[in-house]
């Protein structure tokens, strides 16, 4: 291999998508990877537990609805073992530092919308809040402006989908008022 950095960059560019397997990896033990492996083991256990409770039926197939879940659970178990090895050897690529602030604004926004929809505030209010939080998550700190834009956007979307396409969206006071006005 030539040591010319320019050539090296070109080589880098020309790798096929599946060729980068051995290249990455931090080489350090990866706790987060081990957590993934544990989650996979748990998933397999849940599947097996569920499948063992199915009512037994006698049929020509000799195999019922439990066979595929068992196959999938064994596959996941094998892959979980591989994940443990990968995490132990540090074969996961290095990850960027997590922007916890941005992520929490986003997840929080969705959670608030869920709570608001269950609480009966209606689609428009819930979506406006989600819009504001999501924009904040991407660094737009003007919450009130975000909220205003979100309200306009979700009202437009509501009108389009409720009356244009006939989707049933969760209604709150605002939506009922619009319904009365339109009728």
């Amino acid at each position, binding site marked *: 291999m030539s040591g010319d950095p320019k050539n090296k960059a070109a080589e880098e560019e020309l790798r096929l998508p599946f060729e980068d397997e051995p290249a990455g990896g931090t080489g350090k033990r990866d706790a987060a990877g081990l957590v993934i492996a544990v989650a996979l083991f748990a998933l397999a256990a849940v599947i097996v537990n569920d499948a063992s409770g199915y009512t037994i039926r006698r049929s020509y197939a000799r*195999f019922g609805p439990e066979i595929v879940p068992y196959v999938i659970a064994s596959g996941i178990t094998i892959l979980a073992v591989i994940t443990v090895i990968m995490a132990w050897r540090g074969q996961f690529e290095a990850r960027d530092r997590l922007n916890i602030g941005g992520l929490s604004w986003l997840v929080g926004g969705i959670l608030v919308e869920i709570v608001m929809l269950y609480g009966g505030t209606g689609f428009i209010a819930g*979506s406006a809040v989600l819009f*504001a939080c999501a924009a904040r998550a991407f660094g737009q700190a003007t919450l009130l402006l975000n909220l205003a834009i979100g309200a306009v*956007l979700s009202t437009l979307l509501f009108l389009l989908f409720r009356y244009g396409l006939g989707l049933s969206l969760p209604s709150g006071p605002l939506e009922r008022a619009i319904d009365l006005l339109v009728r």
Partner: protein
Amino acid sequence: MDTFILLFDGLGTAMQPMNLMFALLGVMLGTAVGVMPGIGPALTVALLLPVSLSFGATGSMIMFAGIYYGGMYGGAISSILLNTPGETASIMTALEGNRMAKRGRGGKALGAAAFGSFFGGMFATLGLAIVAPFMVMVALSFGTAEYFALMVLSFMTVSAAFGGSMSRGLTALFIGLTIGIVGTDKLTGQVRLAFGIPEMSDNISIAIVAVGLFAIGETMYLASQHINHKTKAQAVSGSVWLNWSDFKRCIRPYIRGTGLGFLFGPLPTGGAEIPTFLSYTTEKRLATGEARREFDEGLGAIEGVAGPEAANNASAAGTLIPLLTLGLPTSATAAMMLAGFQQYGLQPGPLLFTNNAELVWGLVASLFIANLMLVVLNVPFIGIWVKLLTIPRPWLYAGILTFATLGIVGAQGSPFALVLLLGFGLVGFVMRRFGYPLAPALVGAILGPLAEEQLRRGLMINQGDWWFLLNSNIALTIYAIALLSIFGPRLWSFTRKAIRQNKGAHS
């Protein structure tokens, strides 16, 4: 020629005013999302899955195909002007395209890309119309064993080709398969993995899975990064119209790119990445004279834009061959389109051509119309799309998220759908962060239940004897192809490395 009569009838379907409108809507949406970095055609189709239920089967499929083609056109714009490809298919376009834009030849690059997309799209669609009926004839002889083998092929190759690592691809696939078994078993009525939740016992809608993994997961991933979401685009400089000498330089790359795209599109290797890559390297290798200098000195060669852009549109058409004739998706967008068909109770495959000939040929014919629309939208009206790049990113992503939740809540009519959506979003985010590819999960969730049905039906016919799976030469051939497609590339890269090391030792 039967094909051309059918295609002509299809043209009648496609020319109906409503269908023309759906095609126009599709190509405009497709171009718009292709332009915006971070949103690809797969994501757009996912977002529109729930709301398209009121459009009718033909209309929404025409729209989805328009989005697919439009995304390939639009992706070139952000690649060239921003150097951030809108989707994986335009990564190769960014290499030479952005260099051209920086040197004041952005217009030429955009023109070469648009005409390349047109060329690739037109000829590959023609190829699709010619090849599909033959594939249907072959597919009609397939039984349960062959179909099961085809699905295994699809599972294996989709896991091997997407992303870097095979084990992570397979893990993603098995997560998808698990999602696929949630709900009521079709053959026995047994409820599986529903934990007593009524919304889960009648099967999770694939739209929730798709939007959750792709849209929500992707936006979470973007929000979790420490990057400035405000980057500047290069202005369009120079005319987008190609003159005769540009055209002479482009025509060969167009032909080669179209060939590669059409050849690789139908193979289950994950859509456009490989053909665009091969097209780029071919052009780079074959370049002489002026082009050679531009490639070598990093000035941006028009051939490096023309080839890959023809290839990615041709591969989009190629992808539709296995999707329509066998019901096998070979790219993420094709998987979304398969979900779209299933939404209407339609199963793509040879029977679709006999039972829903109007839909299939209307769809194929509309692809020609979509291509014509796209070249008009992308050459004289290029300025409008470039404007889209100026929407502030935070509001853009917030709007996508709002739209995603709207579609899901509207189609399901219950806030619980949002809980599931958030759950899949978190799964998608973790997968994205740890380098797991998302496409296998989606393909697993969509094809898993179909594969299970074939397997258990086969077991029923053969009274529980598993050997029926290997009792067919066609099935065995398909398994051989599956093994080859997994180990072939690895073998190839291994030998290439060995050769390279050898060379290094000699020099």
